[in-house]
């Protein structure tokens, strides 16, 4: 089958959506044509099975999306694909137009953030799409809340690269100070960096030599460094900046707990769509401490692969982390369970589920 995949997010840009869609294309049985704006960054290392059509990226985001949607319709007219899979709600209009003009089924991928940021557009898209894919039970609930027909929303959890964490399986952890690690772009407040900084002094009161390493960079970095200073924790909080994959994996191998207490923001936005990074940490044998709201609860099973806590309460976060640091046996048990679960959630498994959904939608149309 030939599938058209319009999306604003695709490598070489980095991020969860980009990774998910690229892995989907890579592991799918179908032939994809990806339509996405030009993206600055290093040379592409993306699936060979996909043809990628690049559209102009303009300063005006709306104009960029309008062109992307228009090109989607034009390519559909030329290709007559079996289905169009929209990677984000902003490419939903193009997908719906393709469905209306050519009778091609339109399937909508939903991540989370976009549903709360663009509720009106999202409502329109999910009501008229042939089917929708939600990356977590949280996203599914969001979709149902804005009026998506329940029977048409399918929860398919993302996966993780099977090679990740291979070193941690064979090489014992280095002795060192108890280490918490967070891997994230420093762009979204909901990821709980501020709550972590407030929690660090309380963690250190119980685990005196604990340290927190934040791998990633972004516009919040200066603010967070200032907050760390205000709390007097600069000696045990390190911002590494953006790292290459090997260096990032090195920190995941050295860490004891992965901490990213994401929360829903007061206006209803935020929260993880799923939080692929929790699975990546799990592949390194790390238990996670995550927020108990948002899609993270599908990535981290409370009490089995980590701990989920009220991420607005820094004392709760501190206690959850310190409890884990002080209990090596429990930490190891949760970490191994996290790895075992992550190994089951492969990209291939996810792609297979999406393939089967597309097949059923196409078959139903026929």
């Amino acid at each position, binding site marked *: 089958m030939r599938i058209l995949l319009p999306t604003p997010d695709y490598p070489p840009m980095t991020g969860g959506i980009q990774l998910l869609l690229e892995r989907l294309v890579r592991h799918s049985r179908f032939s994809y044509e990806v339509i996405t704006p030009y993206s600055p960054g290093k040379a592409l290392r993306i699936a060979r099975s996909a043809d990628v059509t690049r559209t102009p990226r303009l300063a005006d985001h709306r104009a960029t999306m309008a062109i992307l949607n228009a090109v989607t319709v034009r390519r559909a007219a030329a290709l007559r694909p079996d289905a169009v899979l929209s990677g984000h709600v902003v490419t939903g209009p193009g997908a719906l137009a393709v469905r209306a003009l050519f009778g091609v089924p339109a399937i909508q991928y939903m991540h989370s953030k976009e549903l709360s940021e663009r509720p009106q557009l999202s409502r329109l898209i999910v009501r008229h799409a042939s089917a929708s894919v939600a990356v977590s039970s949280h996203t599914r609930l969001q979709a149902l809340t804005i009026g998506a027909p329940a029977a048409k929303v399918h929860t398919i959890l993302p996966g993780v690269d099977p090679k990740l964490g291979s070193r941690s399986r064979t090489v014992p952890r280095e002795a060192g100070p108890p280490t918490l690690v967070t891997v994230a772009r420093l762009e979204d407040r909901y990821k709980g960096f501020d709550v972590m900084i407030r929690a660090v002094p309380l963690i250190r009161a119980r685990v005196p030599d604990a340290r927190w390493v934040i791998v990633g960079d972004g516009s919040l970095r200066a603010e967070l460094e200032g907050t760390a*200073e205000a709390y*007097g924790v600069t000696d045990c909080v390190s911002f590494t900046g953006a790292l290459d994959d090997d260096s990032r994996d090195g920190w995941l191998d050295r860490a004891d707990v992965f901490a990213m207490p994401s929360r829903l923001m007061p206006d209803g936005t935020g929260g993880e769509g799923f939080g692929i990074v929790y699975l990546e940490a799990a592949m390194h044998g790390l238990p996670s401490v995550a927020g108990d709201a948002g899609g993270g609860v599908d990535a981290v099973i409370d009490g089995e692969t980590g701990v989920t806590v009220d991420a607005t309460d820094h004392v709760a976060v501190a206690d959850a982390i310190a409890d884990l640091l002080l209990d090596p046996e429990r930490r190891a048990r949760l970490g191994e369970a996290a790895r075992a679960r992550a190994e089951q959630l492969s990209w291939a498994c996810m792609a297979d589920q999406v393939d089967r959904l597309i097949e059923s939608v196409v078959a139903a149309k026929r």
Partner: protein
Amino acid sequence: MDPGGLDAAAMAAAMVHRGPDDQGIYVDPGCALSIAARRLSIIDVAGGHQPIANEDGSVWAVLNGEIYNHASLRDRLRRRGHLFTSATDTEVLVHLYEDYGTSLVHAIEGMYAFAIWDRGARRLTLVRDRFGEKPLFYAERADRLVFASELTALRAGLGLDPELDPQALDAFFLLGYIPGERTIFRGVRELHPASVLTWSESAQRPDTSVYWSMPPRPAGRSETISALADEGGHLLRQAVRSRLAADVPVGVFLSGGLDSALVAGIAATEVTGRLKTFTVAYDVGDIGEGVTARATAERLGVDHREVTLSSSQVARSVSELMESLDQPNADPTLVALHTVAGLARQEVTVAVGGEGADELFGGYPRYRWMNRAALVERHVPPTVARAGAALIRRLPEKNHVGRLADVLEPAGFAQRNLDWVSGGRRTARFELYGPRLREHASAHRELKERGTLCAIDDLRDVAACAMALDQRRYLPDDVLAKADRATMLVSLEMRTPYLNRELAEFSATVPASVHLANGGKSVLREIARRLPGISDAHRAKRAFRVPMSQWLCGPLAPLLEHQASGGSLIGEGWIDPRALRRMIDAHNRGAADHSGLLWPVLVAGLWLDRLRAH
């Protein structure tokens, strides 16, 4: 050593007004320490006796203030096996201490000054809240550390009255309050906000450290004002909600301004039944807040009370109030707040106020003027600016034109800021000084201290720097000291939702330029715009003001006259009688408005007369 706890008992007796409901004393079996507490019962009225201990009596605590998140902390501590004997917030402290040691400060949200005695470690820990809402004084005497929530109580524990600190008095006449850790008494210090003091039997000396500060303001957030208001509004609502929690009646101080109207607007939707609000009005001048407050109260549908501070009452009120203060504070609104607190106390035990909003959210017009001055400094050569300022000062009209001259006049940040907040007293106060004060007066001490507090290296963000300076100086040492004394003297607890840690940290993530847009406090205005009942009447900055100039040549004139003729300030050589006489005459003739200096003289004079009478 205080074997029978007699000193502690005497200290507690000196501040019955802070806690009229109960008293308790704990004396360590080894006689290393005695602590006493007076209690204004607000949470667990029946079961909250202080001092309170942990399960085995190894940790003891006394608390002045409130821990707003005590309920959730108690739940967590219970799950970890701690046993509680009361529902009070104070008991949470001893168990938190067991788990986190002095890092417990990072778990609590509130306004507090507390002491924890660790019997095993023979260590005392004193802690003051992040913004300085609750006072905590201490002094070292030989092998003793004496501490208290008020200087009146501390003096009772020291025995002999300490000498006045001339440097503190000089700072008082400059600023109208005593800044930093200095107090009116030599050798007695106030613990800085957000600080911990530890004293152990082995070291025998206090060790202080700061546990929190306002985060520095970053380059800026890109969110819209609407998104900022979403986040800020949510945090403010949470803060108001937490400050309404009590086992006794709670009300709101409602002035004519935005800050208190916003608090009242939120509180009205959070309480069951009708919210009670309180305001003060005057019978002279044209700056009464009564009309606006009344209109707001009507729109909000709250149960509103108003008290008029009449000219006939003001002399007695001022006299009584200043004589009751533990150290002088010349904030002109002190007397008004004390009056409205008295009214509120008839119906409630806790009142919520709008203190802190101006300093955190950019409410004072001086922030914008400081920006304008910096702009001039960057683009206009100093000689031209100086000549322009001189020219403008020759013009007859004074007010706004005078401000323009201030903006043009070249001056460093610290000096300009100080001139602005001291209203000309930086130089004028020296004329008043008698020989005893003159030898200790310094033109540079406060400038230097301000420079240390806020080293400015970027003139493009002077407003942010001025806000930071106010947060560390004016807010704790004047605004909050005034609020604490004005209310506690009538046994009323005041709570301030704007001084919530998360809300304050949020305010620091917003660039000063965003705060100052739209006439200042733009984020709060946007939050208010979404609330029914908060009208455009609150758009203009309305300080909680009093008709001081009229009072000083009217009802307060006899008190001032007494100071000029036979007050202790004159008698002890602090103030020059002829200079004071000249200043009073000029003020009474209307030749000049000297209320900026005459009011501090009256405040300090009444206070000192009372001290000497005892």
